[in-house]
């Protein structure tokens, strides 16, 4: 436990919309400098949680603290502490991008010159310096997302919340955006939600799984995906019985199982006797020696597999 108070602290937070229990007692802590991935099925309560965290929605019960201060609709987080990329908010269609960003920075307390400089710097960081005079309606969906991220980092907030930053983007735009996020994450505290679990695995230090309005698992990425004493192999061809038996004969191996739904060979070992990296090395050596072609190897389970285990449903 760190002695420094967490930048985000939620205790028993509930929120109901009519008959829908959107949040059902959420407890969550996040310390400065960490990148948290928030994952959950559609309707799990991710956006509601962000809305409560930003003071847009009032929690029915429980406490929300950001940077040590209690937050609700009457008392939003202190100015400049939180930057948000909302999932479904739109820019004003007819105002130039640069002018809108300058306005947001002015509202955060900067004078006009400083606000304009900050807005230009933010646009440059997301690779859109040339879009200063563009109208939002003239931008592609991916460029719009990047402008929204520029908006979220104006004034260098202590906490940045990104609600599904790559949702709806084509693979090229998503890749460009991930490159932007990799640069932006340095030295920041970020909470990012996404349905793209490999993206979360790639970008985050910790993962919280939100299911039916509650956090069902919160752990480091390594803790979540690497805790299983298992190596997953994607082979070029389904293995023969003889190949499986040969792998079962290795000293480190406890059990070998072919998983046809995931098209993976699951090799279980005893982690108390063998480190995962060593077990992986020995297994690869065996596959090479036996000329068994493989295209992918993974220590532990993927986040997607862990997610499905925890939530009992595909994302």
């Amino acid at each position: 436990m760190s002695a420094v108070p967490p930048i985000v602290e939620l205790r028993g937070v509930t929120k109901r919309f009519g008959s829908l229990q959107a949040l059902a007692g959420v407890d969550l802590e996040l310390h400065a400098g960490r990148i948290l991935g928030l994952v959950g099925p559609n309707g799990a309560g991710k956006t509601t949680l962000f809305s409560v965290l930003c003071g847009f929605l009032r929690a029915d019960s429980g406490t929300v603290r950001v940077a040590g201060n209690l937050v609700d609709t009457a008392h939003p987080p202190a100015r400049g502490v939180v930057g948000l990329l909302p999932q479904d908010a739109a820019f004003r269609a007819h105002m130039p991008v640069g002018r809108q960003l300058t306005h947001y920075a002015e509202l955060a307390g900067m004078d006009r010159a400083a606000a304009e400089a900050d807005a230009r710097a933010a646009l440059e960081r997301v690779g859109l310096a040339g879009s200063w005079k563009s109208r939002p309606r003239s931008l592609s969906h991916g460029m719009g997302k990047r402008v929204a991220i520029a908006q979220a980092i104006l004034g260098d907030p202590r906490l940045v919340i990104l609600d599904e930053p790559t949702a709806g983007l084509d693979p090229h735009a998503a890749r460009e955006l991930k490159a932007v996020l990799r640069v932006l994450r340095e030295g920041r505290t970020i909470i990012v939600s996404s349905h793209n679990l490999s993206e979360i695995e790639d970008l985050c230090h910790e993962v919280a799984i939100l299911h039916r309005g509650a956090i069902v698992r919160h752990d480091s990425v390594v803790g979540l995906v690497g805790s299983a004493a298992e190596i997953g192999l994607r082979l070029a061809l389904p293995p023969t019985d003889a190949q499986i038996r040969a792998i079962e004969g290795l000293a480190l191996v406890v059990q070998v199982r072919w998983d046809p739904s995931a098209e993976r060979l699951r090799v279980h070992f005893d982690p108390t006797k063998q480190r995962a990296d060593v077990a992986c090395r020995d297994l690869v050596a065996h596959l090479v020696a036996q000329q068994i072609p493989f295209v992918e190897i993974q220590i532990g389970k993927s986040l997607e597999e862990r997610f499905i285990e925890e939530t009992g449903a595909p994302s």
Partner: protein
Amino acid sequence: MHHSMSFRAIRVVAAYEVERLARSPHGGAVLLLFVSLYGWAAYSLRRIVDSVPGGSGVDLDSDFAKAVASFVGGAVELSPDALTDTFRDHPPLLVAVFALSLMLTPLLAILLSSDQTATDIRTRHLRFLLLRTDRLSLYLGRAVGTLGAFAIAQALATAAVVLALSPSRVGGADGALYLLRGYANVLLLAVPCIALMAALSALTAHAARALMLAMAIWVVLAIAVASTGTDFEFLRFGFPTAGKYRALSDHLGDLAPLLGFQLAYAALALGLGFVAFRRRDL
């Protein structure tokens, strides 16, 4: 520390709102309507002026003038004496410009101010703003900015009408002062109209619905007052246009109650609207 209402934030929001209205198709359309209506007014007045040789030449003490003052005064809620004094003490052309402005202001102010917070609530654009400022500064800033945009448009329209009629007919410094007083009265009439639209905008979260609702209230109350007689005349105070032509009078007995009503209406509408805006889940 949490952020609370600040005059600086209101100023920033208001300045941006003026710019936003100037750049938006909606603001452009209302400006076009300003130009069209005041252009038509200037053209009509010019024709009247050109058709009267040697100035007005009307004897305001004649029985005919008194009968007209009695008829018109009743329609605009002014005593015949107040109306006669107005025409006696000020250039009739400027009185006409002033009256026309009072007639057009509610419609133009309502059209201009129908989208103060509505679209931003509907599109969740407010989420970009509310982490940086408080709801009250935002709500008041939008209303102040809309009033600023209206004030600019009204000043341009008034100047254009005076130019069209020829500045020599304004009547020197006294006429200019009267124009200024008329301009101030028109802005005061715009205040409760904009306040009403601030409330309807926040309540409906839809600019077109806010506009339709305002028009519906206006029409329904007018019909109700006309059809129910004096017992329900108080209903006309449900809309900010009540007693608006009293602003033409120079008598304090006409002006003070009007000013009181307009400010009270604006405060009530803004207050109720803010309660709705503050309670909204955004």
